[in-house]
C-alpha cells in the first residue's frame, strides 16, 4: 500500500517536573514499562498505521534518544522507501538552535516537510502514552472535510490544574475554543498534542505564522485559525486510555498501571508489537528460593531475592535476601544482599549496597539518580 501519511515526532517539550529523570535525557527517551522508551509508543502507533517515513525533531539532551533510535533498524525504518530522519537543532541566521515551541521547530524543519511526498502529515509530541490508529483518524479527517484534525481525550487522569491544552468541541466534532494552561480546565477534552493535516497546508500555515512572529503552535497559530474561521478544525477522540508523563508521580503511576493485565492489553498485542532497541540479553534467571509477585521482569535480570509489585528493566540484579517492593528499577541496577527498597525509582546502573534500607512514600517516590551507589 502506498503511503499516504508522513509522521513527525517533536521531542523538545520541557519537563521541569520530571527533575532527575530528565536531567540527562529527553522526555521522549524516558525508560518505560521494563524495556521501552516513551518514544517507542508514538512510533508504534505510526508504524501500525502504515506510516513509514518518520521525522524526529530533537532539542536538548538528545544523545540518549539518538543512541536509542540508532539507524532505525529495529523499527524497520532503514529502507529506501521508508526511514527515520533525526532532525537535530541547528543554527541559522534567523534561528539560534533553541525552539521556543513546536511552531519554531516546524519552521526550522520546513525542508523535511517539503521533501516528503506523502499527502498528509501526522505531528505528535511524546509526553502522552496511548495507542491510536492514524488510518482511522485520516478517514475521519477526509470524511468530515477537515483542514486540521486534533487528537483529544476525555481521560480525567490527564487533566491538570494550571497546565495543559483543552478544547471546546461541539456535537459535530468541530473545535470552537481553546484553553491553555487554565488554573481550572473548563473543557473536558484534553488536546493530546497530536494533529493530522495536509502537508502542503501545514507548510503554508507555518510560513505565514512565522512571518507573523508566532512561536507556539497551539496558543498562537491555532488560536488565530479559530478566530479567523477560515479553516475547518475538528477533533478526533482517542478511543483508548491515555497516560501523561509530566511529573515523577505520573511517571511512577503510569508505569505501575501496566502491572494490570487490562492496561497491558491496550498497548501490547502480538499482532501489533511495540519495537524498541534490542540488547540481546538472555532470559531472566530465577535462582532457587526467589519470590516474585505482581511484577514485570525484563530479560537479563537475575533474581535471587524477593520482588513484589515492581517493574525491573533489563539486566537488573536482586541478590539473595534483598526485598524490592513497589519499585521501578532501571537497567543494570543492582540491589545487593539484604537490602530493602520500597516506593523508589532507581535510575540506570544504581547500586543499593548490602543491607541498605531505602523506603519512601508511594505518593511521592524517591528517585535515585543514574550511577549512584547508596
Amino acid at each position, binding site marked *: 500500500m502506498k503511503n499516504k501519511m508522513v509522521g513527525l515526532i517533536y521531542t523538545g517539550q520541557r519537563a521541569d517536573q520530571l527533575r532527575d529523570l530528565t536531567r540527562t535525557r529527553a522526555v521522549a527517551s524516558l525508560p518505560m514499562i521494563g524495556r521501552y522508551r516513551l518514544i517507542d509508543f508514538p512510533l508504534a502507533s505510526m508504524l501500525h498505521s502504515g506510516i513509514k517515513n518518520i521525522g524526529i525533531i530533537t532539542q536538548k539532551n538528545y544523545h540518549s534518544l539518538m543512541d536509542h533510535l540508532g539507524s532505525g533498524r529495529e523499527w524497520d525504518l532503514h529502507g529506501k522507501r521508508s526511514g527515520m530522519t533525526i532532525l537535530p537543532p541547528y543554527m541559522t541566521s534567523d534561528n539560534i538552535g533553541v525552539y521556543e515551541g513546536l511552531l519554531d521547530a516546524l519552521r526550522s524543519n520546513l525542508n523535511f516537510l517539503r521533501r516528503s511526498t506523502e499527502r498528509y502529515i501526522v505531528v505528535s509530541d511524546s509526553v502522552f502514552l496511548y495507542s491510536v490508529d492514524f488510518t482511522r483518524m485520516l478517514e475521519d479527517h477526509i470524511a468530515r472535510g477537515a483542514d486540521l484534525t486534533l487528537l483529544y481525550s476525555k481521560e480525567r487522569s490527564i487533566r491538570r490544574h494550571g497546565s495543559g491544552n483543552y478544547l471546546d468541541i461541539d456535537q459535530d466534532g468541530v473545535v470552537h475554543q481553546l484553553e491553555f494552561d487554565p488554573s481550572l480546565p473548563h473543557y473536558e477534552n484534553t488536546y493530546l498534542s497530536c494533529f493530522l493535516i495536509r502537508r502542503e497546508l501545514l507548510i503554508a500555515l507555518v510560513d505565514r505564522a512565522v512571518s507573523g512572529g508566532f512561536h507556539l503552535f497551539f496558543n498562537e497559530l491555532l488560536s488565530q485559525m479559530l478566530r479567523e474561521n477560515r479553516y475547518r478544525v475538528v477533533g478526533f477522540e482517542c478511543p483508548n486510555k491515555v497516560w501523561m508523563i509530566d511529573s515523577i508521580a505520573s511517571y511512577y503511576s503510569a508505569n505501575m498501571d501496566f502491572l494490570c493485565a487490562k492496561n497491558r492489553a491496550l498497548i501490547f498485542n502480538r499482532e501489533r508489537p511495540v519495537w524498541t532497541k534490542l540488547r540481546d540479553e538472555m*532470559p*531472566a534467571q530465577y535462582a532457587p528460593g526467589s519470590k516474585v509477585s505482581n511484577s514485570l521482569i525484563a530479560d537479563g535480570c537475575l533474581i535471587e531475592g524477593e520482588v513484589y509489585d515492581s517493574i525491573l528493566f533489563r539486566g537488573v540484579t536482586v541478590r539473595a535476601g534483598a526485598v524490592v517492593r513497589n519499585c521501578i528499577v532501571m537497567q543494570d541496577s543492582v540491589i545487593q544482599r539484604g537490602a530493602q527498597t520500597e516506593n523508589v525509582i532507581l535510575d540506570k546502573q544504581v547500586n543499593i549496597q548490602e543491607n541498605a534500607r531505602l523506603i519512601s512514600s508511594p505518593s511521592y517516590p524517591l528517585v535515585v539518580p543514574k550511577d549512584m551507589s547508596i
Partner: protein
Amino acid sequence: MVNKKSCVAMLLAGGQGSRLGVLTHQTAKPAIPFGGKYRIIDFPLSNCANSGIDVVGVLTQWQPLELNAYIGSGSPWDLDLSSGGVFVLPPYMKQEASEWYSGTANAIYQNLPFIEQYDPDYVLILSGDHIYKMDYAEMLASHIATQSACTIAVRPVPWEEAHRFGLMNTDENDRIIEFEEKPKNPKSNKASMGVYVFTWTKLREYLTSDERNPSSSKDFGKNVIPSMLAAGEKMSAYSFDGYWKDVGTIDSLWEANMDLLKKPVPINLHDRSWRIYARNVGMPPHYVFPSGSVENSLITEGCEIAGQVSGSVLSAGVVVEEGAQVIDSVIMPFAVIRKGAVVRRAIVAESAQIGENARVGEAEGQIAVVGNNVRLADGAVLPAGEQAGN
C-alpha cells in the same frame, strides 16, 4: 565474481532430525527453540558473527519455511551485508542433474558454485544441532599454522561413552592418524564435534571425486574424511574443551535446557564478549501474577505466569494459568498451560495448548513431548516418554 573472502562457512541444516520425534514434524531441527529466547541455529550463526566470519550458507531441505523466516535478512546476527551475509541454500534444478541433498558431502558438492563466488582459501563446515560457544577464528588459525588439508574440532568424551561417537586417533602433534566411526573398542576419546575447516582446493578435489564414486553415501564422516586420510592428506585435530552439547534427541535437548539452570552454569549466555543473538519477538517484559510463583527457572519476554513454575525454561509469550504447575520442563514460544494442568519433565512445543487439569509427563521416567500446535484436551493424560503430535 563477488569479493574474495578468506573463509566461508557452510551450515548443514537439511536433515529431518527424526530422533526429535514430533518436534521436527513441521520444523527443521535448527529452528527448534532453545534456552528461552534462542533457536538452535542462533549458536552457530552467533559464533560465526563473533568469529568474524561474514559469509554463511545455510543448506536446507526439510520443512524450511520456519527456518527461512527466522533467518530472514540475517540482521539479528549482523549478517545482512552488501559484501556477504547469510544465504539460505535449498537444492535447485541444474542442467546435468536435479536432486535433493543425498548426504552432507553431496549438499556441499551441490553448492560448490556458491562457495566459488567468494574464491575462499578455507571453508568451515558446521552443523545445526549443537549448543556451544566457539571461536572459529582460533580453529582457523590453527589450521593455517599446521598447514593441514583438513582440521576437525574434537572434544574429550568419557571413555565409557566413547563408543557412541566418531573418534580421532591422533599422534603427539594432534595429527589424525585414524578415524573410527562408533568403534566397539575405542583407542581414543577425542570425539568429532562435526566442525571442520578445509583448505578450499582440497575440499573441492575430494568432494568432486567422492561424487563420482557410486558406492559412496556422500557423507563427510563416512566417506570424505576416510578417503582423505587414506590418501595421506594432513589432517589435524583441534581440541575444544568448552561446553558442547548435541541436541539431536529429546533427552539431550531437554538436558541442554536444564544445563542452563545449573550453578555454576556450564555455558554462560550472559557473556557480553560473546553474545548469542536471536531474532526478537517484540514483546513486553514477562509478568508474574500475585497468584504466580517462579524459582530456579529462565523466563523471557511476553510470558504471563499465574501458576507455579520451577526448574523450567520458558520461551516468549508462554501463558501459565492459575493453579497450573510447570516443573522441570521446557516450554516453547506461545504455548498455553491452562488452569490446574501439571507439566513435569516435559517438552511442550510452539503454540501447543495443555487443557485444564491435564497431566503431561511424570516426576520420574522419560521426557514427555507435546508437538507444535497440539491441543491437549481438558483432563487429558500424557504419561512419561509419550509424544503427542499432529
